[in-house]
């Protein structure tokens, strides 16, 4: 058992060092430490603007989201890694060749994730916070050990929750959809008719605000329940069988006939439909995070009255939906086309078309929220913000990473450039959305900029592919 655990830790370390490049990878905890230090040094300012509730909520949400993304990665990590390294296999995926039960192997995998991310993510973050707390004049209203404990609990809740949902999904995607829809409707009902604070559903949130043994036990109980359920009902779908499909390429190519990229778009949609995760990918990687962002934005808008929650949400949706491009490029390496007469610019443009079609899902979510919150008046501006930001983020991603966003965005230099190009534009638009409901229309100017960036990207990556 211990040997298995040790080897999984080694595997995770080597995987990350291969993914991000040895030196850059080793610098990552330091990067987190520095980022956390600089953010927390602004704590006295935050404390004036935001209430304790918000600060605690944001801190907990951060680690909850990290936990959810680490868990979500497990859903389609193998595809991403196969693309990056060729045919890879993890110890966890080779359990059939080991004289150990699947449950034991996956329990080890789960514990490994907790310890690994505790050491390389949570501890550097808390260390940054600790060092800055020695410098700043304001005293923190919580203790550092308590912050460490609740951050870890939030991370574990996020991780175990996704583990639980993916276990349910492995048994029946339909049941998962029913559970999530029921939960969503119930939350809407409770929020509309009762004065129940939905945040209290995240036990670590109340724990940092006001520690008590009962709350601590509830948090641990939630994690244990999700984990035990997931391990007991673990179902691994071994890709041993040969999957047969009727020819759908012709039908889809005809469907997308309105563009000259219809053939490549048809392939994109078949990749999405037939790959591991399938529908789950859309639920876990787009719909759930967007709903969670809405939850976050609507919560914040309760405290900052001037904030137009729909406009802020539309900015977040615009930025977040650019991750669709990452899915579209994760299935097959571009060298699939190297021996065919296909220009890289054609591949990039076809991905943009596929992106635009899938992005209508994000627009639908935005529309639903506008209907739900009765903010029709702001819907046109919200849509302009969403489309502009979505196109801009996409064009920056393409310019910096070409057809390799899942690899190059982990390069510290490229990620830094990405942040520099996206963050100021987003912050300005958030600011404009707070002070006015007309000024955000300036976002439309990002559309021509995006078009130029896309043109430049096509030239840049065509040249790059020819030079290798």
């Amino acid at each position, binding site marked *: 058992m211990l040997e298995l655990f040790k080897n999984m830790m080694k595997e995770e370390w080597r995987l990350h060092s291969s993914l991000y490049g040895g030196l850059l990878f080793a610098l990552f905890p330091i990067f987190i430490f520095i980022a956390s230090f600089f953010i927390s040094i602004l704590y006295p300012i935050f404390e004036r603007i935001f209430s304790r509730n918000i600060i605690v909520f944001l801190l907990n949400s951060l680690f909850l989201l990290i936990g959810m993304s680490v868990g979500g990665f497990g859903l389609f990590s193998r595809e991403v890694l196969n693309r990056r390294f060729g045919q890879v296999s993890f110890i966890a995926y080779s359990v059939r060749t080991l004289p150990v039960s699947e449950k034991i192997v996956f329990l080890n995998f789960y514990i490994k994730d907790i310890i690994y991310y505790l050491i390389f993510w949570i501890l550097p973050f808390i260390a940054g916070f600790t060092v800055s707390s020695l410098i700043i004049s304001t005293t923190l209203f919580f203790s550092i050990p308590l912050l460490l404990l609740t951050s870890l609990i939030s991370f574990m809740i996020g991780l175990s929750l996704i583990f639980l949902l993916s276990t349910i999904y492995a048994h029946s995607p339909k049941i998962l959809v029913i559970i999530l829809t029921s939960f969503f409707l119930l939350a809407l009902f409770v929020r509309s008719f009762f004065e129940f604070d939905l945040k209290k559903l995240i036990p670590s949130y109340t724990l940092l605000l006001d520690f008590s043994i009962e709350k601590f036990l509830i948090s641990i109980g939630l994690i244990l329940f999700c984990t035990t359920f997931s391990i007991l009902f673990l179902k691994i779908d071994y*890709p041993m069988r*040969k*999957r*047969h*499909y009727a020819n759908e390429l012709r039908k889809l190519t005809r469907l997308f006939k309105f563009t000259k990229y219809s*053939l490549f778009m048809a392939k994109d949609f078949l*990749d999405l439909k037939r790959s591991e995760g399938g529908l789950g990918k859309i639920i876990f990687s787009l719909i759930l995070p967007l709903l969670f962002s809405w939850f976050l934005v609507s919560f914040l808008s309760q405290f900052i009255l001037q904030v137009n929650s729909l406009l802020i949400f539309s900015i977040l949706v615009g930025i977040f939906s650019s991750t669709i491009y990452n899915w579209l490029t994760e299935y*097959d390496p571009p060298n699939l086309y*190297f021996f065919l*007469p296909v220009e890289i610019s054609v591949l990039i443009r076809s991905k943009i078309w596929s992106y635009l079609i899938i992005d209508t899902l994000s627009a639908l979510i935005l529309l639903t929220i506008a209907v739900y919150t009765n903010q029709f008046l702001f819907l046109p501006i919200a849509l302009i913000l969403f489309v502009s930001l979505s196109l801009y983020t996409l064009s920056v991603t393409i310019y910096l990473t070409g057809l390799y966003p899942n690899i190059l965005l982990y390069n510290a230099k490229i990620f830094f450039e990405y942040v520099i190009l996206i963050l100021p534009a987003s912050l300005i638009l958030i600011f404009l959305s707070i002070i006015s409901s007309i000024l955000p229309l300036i976002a439309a100017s990002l559309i021509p900029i995006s078009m130029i960036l896309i043109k430049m990207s096509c030239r840049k990556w065509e040249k790059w592919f020819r030079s290798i």
Partner: protein
Amino acid sequence: MYVVEVENLTKIFNGLVAVDSVSFKVSRGEFFGLLGPNGAGKTTIIRMLTGQLKPTRGKAKVLGINVVRNPIKVREVVGIIPEQEVPPSFLTAEEYLEFVGKIRKIENLEERCDWWFKFLEFEDQRNVLCKDLSRGTRQKLMFAQAFIHEPEIAFIDEPLINLDPIIQRKVKDFLKNYVRSGHTVFLCTHVLNIAEELCSRIGIIDRGKIIYDGPLSEIRKRDERLESFFIKLLGGAMNA
């Protein structure tokens, strides 16, 4: 008439010379075999000749097209079987052949696909996802995609690996007939008996340099098997 003209072609990867000032020509209707041990530079040469890799120095033309200036044009007219079979993961075998056919703008595509599925005996696999196909079937698929547009010249890198003996026989006969009908094949392999059976001319490459270029008949005239000739030559080159 030459269909491949190579002059001082060189490729250097991070200071490592993979192909070192290689020059040779291949005539129309020739079955040219480029032989050499692993890592000798065979695949790098194929990749440069088909516009997949830019040479560091030197010139290369395929069917009169400059491979550096017009890589896409070259790929339009040639057929290529890459070293490793890479059909896309989530298309079925049939969809993949159609995909390639549509990129190459082939007419009567369905007919041609049917012919290849029948000829290589994998009709029962046409609706299986490429990622779930066996290596041999994937190799068949890659073979079919390289020839589906009936190119004038085909660059094929280890095309018979993973194929069972019956299909190997069929493929070898197909290639022989293909060359007989005036097409050209540029074969890269380290399986010497395949080269001996198929090629009319061979080039032997070692550590990026062509160390032999001549008709196979010359070797046969010396009453020598290709294998012993190759080992002697390489042994000599290694000892040098």
